[in-house]
């Protein structure tokens, strides 16, 4: 007998997140407690359905669908936590569109099977996936902090009333959030990438696997992060420029996520 959880689809949590986002946007115009609680409720319901989907369907993180949904799940937790913790800030207004974007992208991807690891490689493969997933979360958080930073800096540049429009975190807090996200993501990305290269060496077609969009994009992402760290600590670059750099890194990251992993089986990866 099939479990009802097997009927949970992208639409279930995608629409829940969409309703939560609509509530958050409405709250900007009509701030009210019931609207906030409704938004939180839909966000939590979406997260529950999302978790059920990941547990039941178990999409492999090596597939674009699996990695996009994995990062979206972490960001949905981040959104819910932020909405509860920063009740007065327009937190979910920034995070939920990214979650929705990732869920939408994952929906467009064809599911692929987990890679057939050689004996002794499964553990390393999992560690490689985990490191990159955590780095991906760091990139996403950095991106969100950067977007918020640019919005807040724009408001300050225009000298808008501190109480008008969106309630936002201070520039200092957003800059620190971005800095921490990049600082954490870079070593994780480096570790994950290094492990991936080692695992690639054991593959049949090293050159073919190396020159895939996924691998080259990840290398590019790593390089962009290196530049960002240099600019932050060595070149005294303004917060706005660093925020723009992080947004570029996020765009590259999306490209990497949406491309097929060289180890994945089927749908553009290895042949079935």
């Amino acid at each position: 007998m099939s479990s009802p959880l097997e009927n949970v689809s992208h639409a279930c949590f995608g629409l829940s997140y969409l309703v939560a986002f609509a509530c958050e946007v409405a709250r900007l115009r009509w701030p009210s407690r019931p609207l906030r609680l409704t938004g939180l409720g839909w966000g939590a319901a979406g997260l529950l359905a999302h978790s059920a989907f990941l547990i039941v369907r178990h999409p492999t993180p090596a597939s674009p669908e699996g990695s996009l949904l994995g990062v979206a799940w972490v960001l949905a937790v981040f959104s819910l936590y932020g909405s509860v913790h920063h009740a007065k800030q327009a937190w979910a207004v920034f995070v939920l569109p990214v979650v929705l974007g990732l869920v939408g992208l994952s929906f467009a991807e064809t599911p692929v099977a987990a890679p057939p690891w050689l004996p002794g490689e499964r553990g390393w493969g999992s560690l490689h996936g985990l490191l990159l997933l955590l780095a991906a979360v760091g990139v996403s958080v950095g991106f969100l902090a950067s977007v918020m930073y640019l919005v807040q800096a724009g408001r300050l540049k225009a000298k808008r009333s501190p109480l008008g429009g969106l309630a936002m975190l201070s520039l200092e807090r957003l800059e620190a959030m971005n800095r921490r996200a990049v600082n954490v993501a870079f070593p994780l990305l480096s570790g994950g990438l290094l492990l991936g290269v080692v695992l690639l060496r054991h593959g049949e077609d090293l050159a073919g696997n190396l020159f895939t969009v996924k691998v080259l994009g990840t290398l590019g992402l790593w390089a962009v992060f290196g530049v960002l760290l240099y600019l932050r600590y060595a070149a005294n670059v303004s917060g706005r420029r660093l925020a723009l750099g992080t947004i570029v890194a996020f765009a590259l990251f999306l490209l990497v996520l949406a491309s097929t992993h060289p180890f994945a089986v089927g749908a553009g990866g290895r042949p079935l």
Partner: protein
Amino acid sequence: MNLRMVGCNYRTAPVEWREKLAFDAAGHAKAVTEVAARFGCEVLLLSTCNRVEFLVAGSVPGGTPPFDAGLAAEFLAEVRGVPAASVAPLLYEHTQAAAVRHLFRVVASLDSLIVGEGQIAGQVKHAFEASQGLGVTGPLLNALLPFALRTAKRVRTETGITRGHVSVSSVAVDYVRQVFDTFADKTVLIVGAGKMGRLTLKHLQELKPRRILVTNRSPARAVEVAALCGGVAVPWDELDDALVKADIVVSTTGAGEPIVTARRYAAKVAPRRTGTQVILDIAVPRDFDPAIHDGDRVCLFNIDDLTRVREQTLAGRRKQVAPAEAIVEHEVKKFTEDWTRRRHGPVIGKLTAEVDKLRAEVTAQLLPRLNGKLTDEDRKTIEGAFRLFQNKLLHGPIAALHEAGREGQSGTLLESLKKLFRLE
């Protein structure tokens, strides 16, 4: 209801009179006790820099406490040592529902000099607690004041009338908070020693910055201001170095032209600084070239920017006055109806029971005489007719009582009903 509000405020009394009539803590307690003892009523005295008002409640329903504007003028003249004839024109009074309305408007800060100011509700609460402590409150004030404070809270939360700051120095701090989150590692630099700068510094000091630097063309003045705020005086010719160190700059010099031009800032300060700097240029003419502002590395706000936000906040509050008045009106009606129901309930209950008893007696006499001639249906019809007659008979007096109650004028009618139907 038996309620009267008598007093003066910033609209009826100039500040020199409000100063004369205001009460300190000791005088407040003495005046409240004295009025309660002399006039035998519940008393609340609200004495702030903008108003001196007595709220008095009598024990006889429907009457008005004797402490009217005339007696209040005499009392204030006596305790304050001023001529009663001078005080009397400054006073206004409201009774019954109008007094409730006035109180609710005061607590909701709709009657304040700056609409939406947040202090008045606390001051009313404090005055109420003082009266309770002195034992001069009774059923009416004990019901009315918590209701008034709830109304003020409703106005605050539903309209946002108290949102934002309306002093230039508070707005300046609001801007600083948009940039910085923690202040324990921040350096504040005060350039000049203007009054507005000192006010802004007072607000900034509440954020507990790591250190305060003060610089002034006059070294003695810099040392003086630094001593007042626990800061360090910096020589005027080290201004550029101080600017490099500062995270927040408050500038209020009396210089005739900008002391820091965009070129000077770009050459001497910007290359040596890391992180964002907030400059609050409150001087007129301005001390910093506005071109320095970029909203990222440097956030420069001058007096016009701060005043504009202040005006926006005030305009926002003015928009909320009509919805706030509607809430007050609704709550006044609710309170007077609740109070009326509480006061009328027992009398109406007694009246209904008395007439019920009479009806039962009459039908008990009538029905046996018609025994044998009536079916059960006939008996029910007759009893129903008597009940209908009773309801129609009582509807008029009860409705009139409720109507008078809504205006807070039901006392005489209530007494008349008691006498007419012998309900004592």
